């Protein structure tokens, strides 16, 4: 797989670091990471950068992850780019809301690096 550009959106810098580490452990040879601490900052990144995959938390202040995904789709930013929600919310209803908002994958916290790897690689391969 050639260069992969990933956007990680989470209000926690520690979680962004953990997700980045998980992506690097996925064996992606050339990985470029963009980070955002909020949905609003995430939209700003997407207005100027192209990415291949987006990983976003749900519970964030100012703009939660679901609204972030709805805005990506309604503003036609990152068209066709898969979005994976990474979150502590685990009920079927939350997963359904995420899919309806436009997400294509869902990973529950706590997670292993292997879970991130499998989800991300399957979406990148399908894209």
């Amino acid at each position: 797989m050639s260069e992969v550009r990933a956007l990680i959106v989470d209000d926690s810098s520690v979680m962004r670091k953990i997700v980045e580490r998980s992506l690097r452990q996925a064996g992606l040879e050339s990985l470029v990471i963009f980070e955002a601490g909020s949905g609003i900052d995430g939209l700003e990144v997407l207005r100027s950068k192209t990415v291949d995959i987006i990983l976003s938390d749900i519970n964030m202040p100012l703009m939660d992850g679901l609204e972030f995904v709805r805005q990506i789709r309604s503003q036609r930013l990152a068209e066709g780019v898969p979005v994976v929600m990474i979150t502590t919310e685990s009920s079927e209803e939350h997963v359904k809301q995420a899919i309806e908002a436009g997400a294509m994958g869902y990973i529950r916290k706590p997670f292993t690096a292997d879970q991130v790897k499998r989800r991300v690689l399957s979406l990148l391969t399908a894209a």
Partner: protein
Amino acid sequence: MLTLRDSLKVVADPRNLDESAREVFETMLGVPCSNQSDRALCDADQGMESVTAVVGFGGILSGACVFRCNALAARRIAECMTGMEFSAVDDIVKDGIGEICNMLAGTWKSKVPDLAANCGLSVPAVITGSDYRLHVQAPEFTVCRTYSFNNTYFEMTIICDGLH
């Protein structure tokens, strides 16, 4: 149809807390943690620097998940999460403790399907200092457990002030 109040015994079962702590620590930090019955360990820390994180519950259950540990445990947790070394409780360590509390709260509430679907979480608040005590009203129930990991320990409390 049973209400959450009818299922109080299930909701307040301390084994849910034990399973949640093990799951979060083993999955995210890659370290085992086990129940520590000697609460005096935490009491001995009074007056020393500690870190407390609080995540609120809202919805069919209102209350909070409180995570408390001393400065050494906080640094060790952050080191396990990030792979970095910390000589003090800085913003990254505090962020890490907030996230641990967030994951513990989310994992705990996922043990009861009604809670998973109908109870939300607040963003974490993190308090640091050496001379404070947390006082929270908990008319419904309180579950408090102490756990050890990597030669240190932490305390986790679920406080419920309302069930609907």
